[in-house]
């Protein structure tokens, strides 16, 4: 089942300011231009698959070039999702029937909370869908659920943009995350950086798409 929709419906963020500084202050960290023809990750289908692996993102600027080590301008993560569509969609049209796990650490000093790096841990992965309008060579997927901000214990819905664009993962694959209930996101919707948009190109690690789960 194909579901065409605007991602704008997902971007309703409550006015709760948790983090020290919002990505909205950064030019390349804004939400994608929704509904424009050139934007990828906009058309999805409910089908079975698996995406696995992890790695490093240097955000900003969101390219494969590593930032100076002393800058600590990077994030590390591990994540997997197994899509087992049950024929249902949630209120936002996402394909229900999924399981998985996410671990995310943002090493940027300005994002520390309670003296420790921002650490996100999934509580439940509930939906996953295959993007049919991406240039991701092996597979591009969109998935999400609920996570906990381990620094504070607060929970938030989240969505992930996940791209396997061949080997090696560094310089090819992409990963991006957005919290829906707090103003935090690491997305790189730069048209000059296809095909990983809106995910950020990995500077290390790998994303592996498995066409069947």
């Amino acid at each position, binding site marked *: 089942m194909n579901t065409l929709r605007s991602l704008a419906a997902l971007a309703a963020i409550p006015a709760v300011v948790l983090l020290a500084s919002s990505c909205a202050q950064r030019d390349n960290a804004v939400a994608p231009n929704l509904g424009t023809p050139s934007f990828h990750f906009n058309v999805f289908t409910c089908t079975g698959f698996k995406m696995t692996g992890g790695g490093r993102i240097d955000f900003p600027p969101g390219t494969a070039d590593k930032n100076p080590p002393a800058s600590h301008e990077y994030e590390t993560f591990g994540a997997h999702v197994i899509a087992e569509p049950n024929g249902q969609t949630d209120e936002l049209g996402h394909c229900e029937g999924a399981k998985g796990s996410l671990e995310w650490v943002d090493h940027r000093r300005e994002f520390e909370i309670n003296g420790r790096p921002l650490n996100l841990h999934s509580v439940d992965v509930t939906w996953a869908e295959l993007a049919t309008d991406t240039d991701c060579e092996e597979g591009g997927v969109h998935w999400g659920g609920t996570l906990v901000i381990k620094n504070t214990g607060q929970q938030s819905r989240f969505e992930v943009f996940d791209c396997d664009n061949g080997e090696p993962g560094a310089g090819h694959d992409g990963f991006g995350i957005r919290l829906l209930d707090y103003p935090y996101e690491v997305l790189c919707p730069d048209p000059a950086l296809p095909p990983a948009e809106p995910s950020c190109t990995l500077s290390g690690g790998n994303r*592996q798409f498995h066409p069947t789960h």
Partner: protein
Amino acid sequence: MKIQNLGRGLRFAAMVLPLTWFARPAFGQAQRTATAQAFGVSVSTALVNQKTPSAAAPAEGGMVQTDAADVSITGLVSARDAYALASGWSDDGYSDAVSSASLGQVNILNGLITANGVLALASTTAAGSDADGSTLANLYVNGVAIAAPAANTRVDLPGVGYVVLNEQIATGSGITINMIHVYLQQTGLLGTKPAGEIVVGSATSSVN
């Protein structure tokens, strides 16, 4: 008699051998096994044997992350914000393994080696392995700054032993990265002999 036995043997072989051929995986579909491990700090001496935090991907496939706000092994190593993550999935040609270990504010042997940040990152697929993304931030060894050391950079530590920075060990099916590996040595009348090891930031991945 011998001819009869030979005939029976040939008939047996003709019946059984094809079964064994079919029992094997088809060419190009050999079962692959992905493994991944990572740890923040490991100390191995005559008196101390400790590794923390550490993570290993489950054999059935999956991901594990462990962390520690503070790591301290008295007189040998201290670090903050240590995370160890291991992800491994065995799935024939789609098998993959990724592991990482990150630490902040590393201090080894009372300031002999310090670094603001350490990240070991190992990645393996059926296509190969790499250590891309691994870094040492603001590294000082014996008071000397070392920026972005090349793989397997050795620096002598007089009276202590030596350290290998950005140690990359290729295995037959993967890679191990030890960002700081101190080899402790004792020197006596009979020469120099190993006295222990300290590893900070280690990641291993493989796909067999």
